[in-house]
Structure formats: C-alpha cells, structure tokens
C-alpha cells in the first residue's frame, strides 16, 4: 500500500470517526475554517513572492522612474524592464507553477501513485515533439497571441493525452489506472524516440533551440502568450474545483469510492481531462518545467495533511509562489547570464525527490 494511500485512508477514517465522536470529544476544526486558514496562509506567501520578485533582477531599477507617468513609456527603460521584462515573467511563472502543481496533485490521486507527475502520462513528451517540429520546420505562423511553438506543443500534448485516454477507456467504461500508467510511460518513450529522430535530422541551431525549449523558459516578453493560455487554465481550474472530495475517496480505490457513491468513471475522466489541460497549457506557455508537479504537492502534504480539499488549492498557490521564486533564482544567480528555470527546479527537486523516497521507504 502506498504511503499516500495509507495517509488518505487514515484521514478518511479519521473524518468518519470524528463525526461519530463529535459529542464526546473536543470539536475538530471544521473543514471550512481549515480551508480558509490554508488559503490565507499560502495566499499571503504567493502575494509576498509576487510583490518581491519584480523588485529584484539582473539590472538595478530606479522605482521612482518606473512609476513616473511624466516620462513617456517608450523612453522609460526602467518602466519597460519592469512592465515588459519582469511582470509578464512573474505572471507566467505563477500561472504555470499553479497549473503544474495542481495537475501533479490530481494525477497522483488519479493514478493512486505518490510518484506520478503531470508528465507521467506522456503530455510533456507530446508537447515537446510538437514544439520541436514547429522549431525544425521553421513554422512562423502566428495569429494574435498564438504563435507557432506554443500552438504546436499544445497540439502535441492533446494528441498524447487523447491516445492515452482512448487506450485506458477502451476495454470497459471505467478507466484502468494501470493501463493509463503503462500507456503513458510507453507513449513517453515512443515520443522520445520520435524527438530524437527529429533532432537527428534537424539543423544544429534548431536542435539547440529545441533543447533549450525543453529546459523551460518564463521570459515571455509580453502578456500575449499568457492571454493565449488563460482560457485553458480557467477551464482546467474550474474543473479542479469539482474534484477534491471525489479525489479523497478515489485515492482509497475505485471500488471503495464507488461504494460511497462516487461516479468513478466520471471523476476519472474529469481528473484526467482537467489535469491534462492544465499541464498542456502550462507547457505551451513555459516549456516542460519539471519537478514542480511532484515537489510542491508533497511539501504541501507535509504541511496540511492529505485531504484534497486542502491539498489542491494549497498546491496551486504554493506551486505559483515556488516557480516564481525558482525563476527569480534563475535570472539573478549568474546575471547577466541566465540559468534555465527547469534546471533550477530539477536541482531542487531531484534531491528532494530522493529524500522523499528514502524517508518513506
């Protein structure tokens, strides 16, 4: 039995017994209060991060000039650095971080596997293949906020998710998480093979650009890519809002959840589609930034426990703050050079992941 599952069982058992013992023991904090506390706590962290992050960067800014309306914006370097370089970066980091962390929580519950990530089911490999094809074929199509590489990566992610979904729902109506996992892992390696093939036939500079894309980059340069990703994010998060209670029961097992009145098939589909959508949108915006989707949910569980009603919103908020902080490190540590943000998250996430394995093992 996985540690996560054990934990969830404990928590569900705890809520059941606590309801029975309400009269005889001290009244436990109701979920609403705990949710409020959690959201306020992590929300404050996110707000502080988002206020501090744009104040720091590779070049010193004169903040009197940044907000000085008397200087025309086209002449105001400080304002342009603040509003064109830093702000979109921070917003992109917050959105991508929230999406990846929340998707991680959902995938971990759906697959009932503590080591699942948003990229376990092949979404990132599909997105990477799409992005690579766009780079190699030199696609220059862009319409409004949509440009070639994000659109292609979104397409690749959608194809990967669709294949996995189709395979997992083929045999019967409910999703088989085993098939999901196996199909996802297989698809990951199949897409990796295609990526290698495309890399091999591609031009040197294109390969380098594609590899750089895989390392993740939040330097979006304007709000357009964010606007392009927002509708998908909004839909995904709206779907997330339906999930927490069902996920709590689903974590124990499909049969147990079904016995408690959860429409398992529907919950699984909702979880899969919403998490895939959030992941695809995040990847198209910032590249496949790794480890957020596993580090953040686990850190959050250490802090608030395993109830998805708390873990999901807390992970989204903490994921946003975490990625903004990682990006702050990425753009300042070696300034004027920049460390790819995916390298920072991996450097922090890798050792953390190992620690988690050893600790739970």
């Amino acid at each position, binding site marked *: 039995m996985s540690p996560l599952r054990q934990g969830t069982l404990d928590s569900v058992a705890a809520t059941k017994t606590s309801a029975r013992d309400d009269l005889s023991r001290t009244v436990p904090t109701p979920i609403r209060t705990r949710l409020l506390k959690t959201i306020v706590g992590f929300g404050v962290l996110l707000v502080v991060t988002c206020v501090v992050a744009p104040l720091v960067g590779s*070049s010193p800014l004169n903040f009197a000039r940044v907000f000085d309306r008397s200087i025309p914006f*086209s002449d105001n370097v400080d304002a342009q650095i603040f509003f*064109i370089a830093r702000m979109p970066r921070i917003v992109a980091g917050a959105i991508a971080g929230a999406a990846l962390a929340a998707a991680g929580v959902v995938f971990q519950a759906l697959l009932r596997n503590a080591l699942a990530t948003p990229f376990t089911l092949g979404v990132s490999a599909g997105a990477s293949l799409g992005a690579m094809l766009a780079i190699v074929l030199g696609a220059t199509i862009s319409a409004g906020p949509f440009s070639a*590489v994000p659109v292609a990566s979104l397409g690749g992610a959608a194809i990967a998710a669709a294949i996995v979904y189709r395979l997992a729902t083929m045999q019967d109506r409910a999703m088989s998480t085993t098939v999901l996992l196996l199909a996802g892992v297989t698809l990951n390696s199949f897409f990796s093979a295609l990526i290698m093939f495309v890399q091999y036939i591609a031009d040197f500079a294109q390969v380098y*650009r594609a590899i750089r894309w895989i390392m993740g980059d939040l330097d979006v340069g304007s709000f357009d890519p964010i606007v392009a990703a927002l509708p998908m994010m909004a839909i995904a998060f709206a779907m997330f809002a339906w999930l927490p209670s069902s996920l709590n029961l689903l974590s124990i097992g499909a049969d147990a959840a079904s016995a408690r009145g959860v429409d398992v098939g529907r919950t699984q589909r909702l979880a899969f589609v919403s998490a895939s959508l959030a992941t695809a949108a995040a990847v198209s915006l910032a590249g496949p930034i790794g480890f957020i989707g596993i580090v953040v949910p686990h850190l959050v569980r250490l802090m608030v426990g395993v109830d998805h009603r708390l873990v999901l919103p807390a992970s989204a908020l903490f994921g946003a703050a975490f990625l903004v902080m990682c990006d702050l490190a990425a753009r300042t540590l070696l300034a004027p*050079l920049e460390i790819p943000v995916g390298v920072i998250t991996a450097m922090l996430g890798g050792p953390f992941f190992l620690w988690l394995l050893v600790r739970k093992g």
Partner: protein
Amino acid sequence: MAAGSKRLIAVAFVLVVCWATRPAAMQQRTTSAVRIVSLVPALTEMLFAIGAGPQVIAISSYDEFPPEVTSLPRVGALLDPDMERILALRPDLVVSYGSQTDVQAQLARAKIRVFSYKHAGLAGVFTTLKDLGAAVGRPAESDNLARQIRTGLDAIQARVRGRPQPRTLLVFERDPASLRGVYVSGGVGFLHDMLGIAGGVNVFADVARESVQPSIETMLARAPEVILEVRATGLLAATDIAQARRVWGALGAVPAVKQGRIEILTGEHLVVPGPRVVQATAAFARALHPDVYK
C-alpha cells in the same frame, strides 16, 4: 594437409597486406596530401582558397562554398562522420574538428594523417591557415592568403576609424516570430572580433563566452544603439524585415529600436570563420556605418 594449406594462405595474405600498405604509409610521411577529406566548412574554404581544391575529395554535410564543392561526396559532419565512407575514399589527410577525438583515433589506427582544427577567434583564422598550408604543402599560398585577409581587415578598420562606435547587439539566432530563443555574441569568438574591426562595440563584451542567451531584461538594460541580426540561411524578404522590426518594436526604450537601427544580414559567409571573414566584416561595417559606405 588442408589445415596446413589454409595456414599458408593466411600467412601469405598477411604478408601481401603488409607489403601493400607499407609503401602507402611511407608515402604519407614523405609527400604532402593529395587526397583530402574535410569535415570543417571553414577549412574547406581555406583549402580551395590556397589552391588545394583539386586535392579535396570529400566534404562535410554543411559545406556550401566554393560552389565546386557541391559536386563532391559528403561524409557527415561534426556529430555524425561516416567513418566507413571516409576510409573507403582512401584519403591521406582528414581535416577534422579537435573535439572529434574518436574519429582521430580511428584514423590514426588506419595510419591516415589528421589535421585537427580548434575553433577560436579571428586570430585563430590566421594560425589555422598557416598550419593548414604547411600540412598540405602550400605554405607560400597560405601566407599570401593570410596577408590578403590581414590587408582587407586593416582597410575596413582604417575606413571606420574615428567614427563613433555604436553599441551593438549582435544576434545570430532568434525565434522567428518573437523575442524568445535569442542568442547573441558574447565577448569571445570571431563574430565579436569582426564586430570590433567593423567599428562596433559589443554590448555583451563583458561576458567571456561565444554565445549568450540574454533575457529581455538584460537586452533592455544594455540599451544597444544597433541591433545587428546575422542569419546564415535564407533570403531576406521585405516581410522578414517588417516582421523583425515588429518583433523588436516591443522593446521601445532600446535606442536601436527607437532610431530604427535594426540591421539584418544574411548569408552563410557571415558565420564561417574562413577566408571570407573580410567580406563578412565589410558587411558588418556597412551596416554599422552606412554614412562611411555611401
């Protein structure tokens, strides 16, 4: 009896092989190369420029210049040299990258001479030229070519001397439709050196690397007066120029954008550190100092 004759045949075969390969091995040491395989485009150009073109029998996948090379067989490049084809062509000199140590070891085992190329700045062009001339037995021609290059570069430098030197962002890679994936020249390498001779100041001269991927913030903060985009391939259409201006237009506070000084140069000669560095440097100078080159 049968075993004995087989052994005899084997011994005879070995003897024949030794006899056949020995004179060839001796010949390599005594005469200059007559069958050259070049895996380095810049050095292929040098070989042709010093008159060793007829000796070049095969080239890399990326060679385009001089036009004669297009009819030659291609045997891979830096990452994927086709060893079998190289050996089958029976070269007596293979020009390879210094980092291709496996290739060089294999060639050494086959007793084929190797010219090892180390990529360096503009000064490296001269040392490579001198060594290559010696390796192919054309030292006089290579000295002559080196002098021509030196004279050409000196002339460009003299022409722009005393002019104000614009602070320049030298871009050699960019996502076509956005300011993502921008790569610029740092303070090391032949592109940086050519920019200096052409009368420009590299805004990333302080970064001791050949290539830098600057963030939008650093590009804004470095405030270049000219943005010089160098593209190795493709023809330049009016739409490309318009698109580049639109993309860079996002950084309105940058002096180069404000004054419309976004210059785009195309041609693979711009990114090959070979004999055409003079042409490339002149193109840089024309873009940076249009008034001088009227």
